[in-house]
């Protein structure tokens, strides 16, 4: 048998083997380890008894507590829904005027609005809702489809040029690409819009030509004063806000290629209460809430 020896330091016997100078003590397993092993095993067994666990071929043991993760989360969602009902039912049943006048609703909007806006809308409109190239500033610019709270809520619900069956549709025609206007005419219109924004002043003759062009082609949608019309969802072309950009080149591109920005529809993804909450939040950013 093995050549056992006693380790001086610990007083334990070795197993008698040696591998290139390495020996092993035959120290018994500390009692603590057994306690540890038994207690964790008992815990594990009890846990598998309580929860769904051991499988068979066509089914599995459902657990004594009858817990199921899908049911559990559905219950907690329903509970959360009930908890939020305190304000969510008010949001959908009362009109905006009443809501905006209620300080508790306003503070709700200020609390719940920012994360909701940041998770869904900020990607396009920016965290402060001031817009990005191609995405309108909805904190300051006049709303193309109207500033009314109900209009805003409706825009959020159905979107603009979105897949929703009731989506708002707004299209800036491609005057150049579709050969409705020539390059020269587009330049004239662009210069005209530049002048409205403090660009170089046009000669009277050029301005008259541009005004006619505008009246003939653009006024139908943007209004004869160019200030936009809510029923066509057109932007005001005379204010300092531009969705796509106000430099002459970008403006020419807008007229040449047309524009058809897509605002997604949020019905289905967000609840009616969330949509109205966001409308209020946008209004608040615009300084429209007390």
């Amino acid at each position, binding site marked *: 048998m093995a050549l056992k020896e006693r380790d001086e330091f610990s007083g334990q016997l070795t197993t008698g083997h040696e591998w290139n100078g390495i020996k092993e003590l035959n120290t018994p397993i500390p009692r603590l380890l057994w306690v540890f092993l038994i207690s964790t095993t008992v815990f594990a067994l009890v846990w598998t008894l309580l929860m769904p666990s051991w*499988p*068979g*071929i*066509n*089914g*599995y043991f459902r657990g004594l507590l009858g817990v199921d*993760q*899908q*049911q*559990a*989360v*559905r*219950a*907690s*969602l*329903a509970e*959360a*829904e009930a908890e939020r009902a305190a304000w969510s039912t008010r949001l959908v049943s009362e009109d905006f005027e009443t809501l905006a006048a209620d300080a508790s609703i306003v503070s709700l909007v200020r609390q719940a609005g920012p994360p909701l806006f940041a*998770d*869904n809308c*900020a*990607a*396009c409109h920016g965290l402060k809702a001031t817009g*990005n*190239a*191609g*995405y309108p500033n909805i904190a300051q610019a006049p709303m193309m489809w109207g500033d009314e709270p109900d209009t805003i809520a409706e825009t959020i619900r159905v979107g603009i040029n*979105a*897949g929703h069956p009731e989506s708002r549709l707004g299209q800036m025609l491609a005057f150049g690409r579709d050969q409705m206007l020539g390059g020269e005419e587009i330049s004239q219109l662009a210069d005209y819009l530049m002048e409205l924004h403090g660009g170089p002043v046009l000669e009277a003759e050029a301005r008259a030509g541009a005004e006619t062009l505008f009246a003939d082609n653009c006024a139908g949608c943007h209004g004869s004063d160019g200030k936009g019309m809510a029923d066509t969802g057109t932007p005001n072309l005379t204010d300092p806000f531009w969705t796509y950009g106000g430099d002459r080149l970008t403006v020419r591109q807008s007229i040449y290629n047309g524009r058809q*920005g*897509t*605002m*997604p529809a949020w019905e289905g*993804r967000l609840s009616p209460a969330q949509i109205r909450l966001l409308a209020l939040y946008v209004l608040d950013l615009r300084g429209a809430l007390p």
Partner: protein
Amino acid sequence: MFGFHYRIERSAMGLVGFIIVVASIGGLIEIAPLFTIDETVETAADMRVYTPLEVAGRNIYIREGCYACHSQMIRTLRDEVDRYGPYSLAVESSYDHPQLWGSKRTGPDLARLGNKYSDAWHVTHLNNPRDLVPESKMPAYRWLLRDALRTDDLSDHLAALRAVGVPYSDEQIANAVQDAYGQANPDSPEAAGTAERYGEATNLRVFDGLPTKLTDMDALVAYLQVLGSLTDAAVRTETAGIE
């Protein structure tokens, strides 16, 4: 016990055999039943397959390693459902070879991304995320818009997917290349075929905004826009529980 071991450790083959047996038990008991217990994967009659363009997009998603930062698995937790939408069901990834559930969320979950943003937004965002989201940590994928999509082997891809169980028809496999073109160019003659073979609900759009080019961007955006909408099962299950 230790005496028994004292014998086992003298036999290499014995050790090998024991290791294999002892190590196989856990996997067998946990994995095999997933194939035999019916309720593991829900049934969803409306489940649709990916179009060839979406398959190509999915492969770009894999190629670029998007899964390293984005999960596609909304867990059964209240905050995840509140933030991202209905929790993910097994059936939703039942045509995903491999699944892309992910293990890290450096960026947000993408399981319900489809239709959340516009195509144009995705193109701008992928081209340089910080143009739209200044805080973003995501790389700028400028090459997606430059590189032409490889389509010549799309039929082989669909055939391989059928070999592992995705129900593509012979016709879908044969017309894969055409259908990819058609989907990204609704004005082309091929588009009608795509709609016919994959259903009217298929997104037929110029995803990358460049009607004359079929780019990697087309494919990736087409894929991103169907995430979470292969079946409505998740929405049905969630609402079923609430009333």
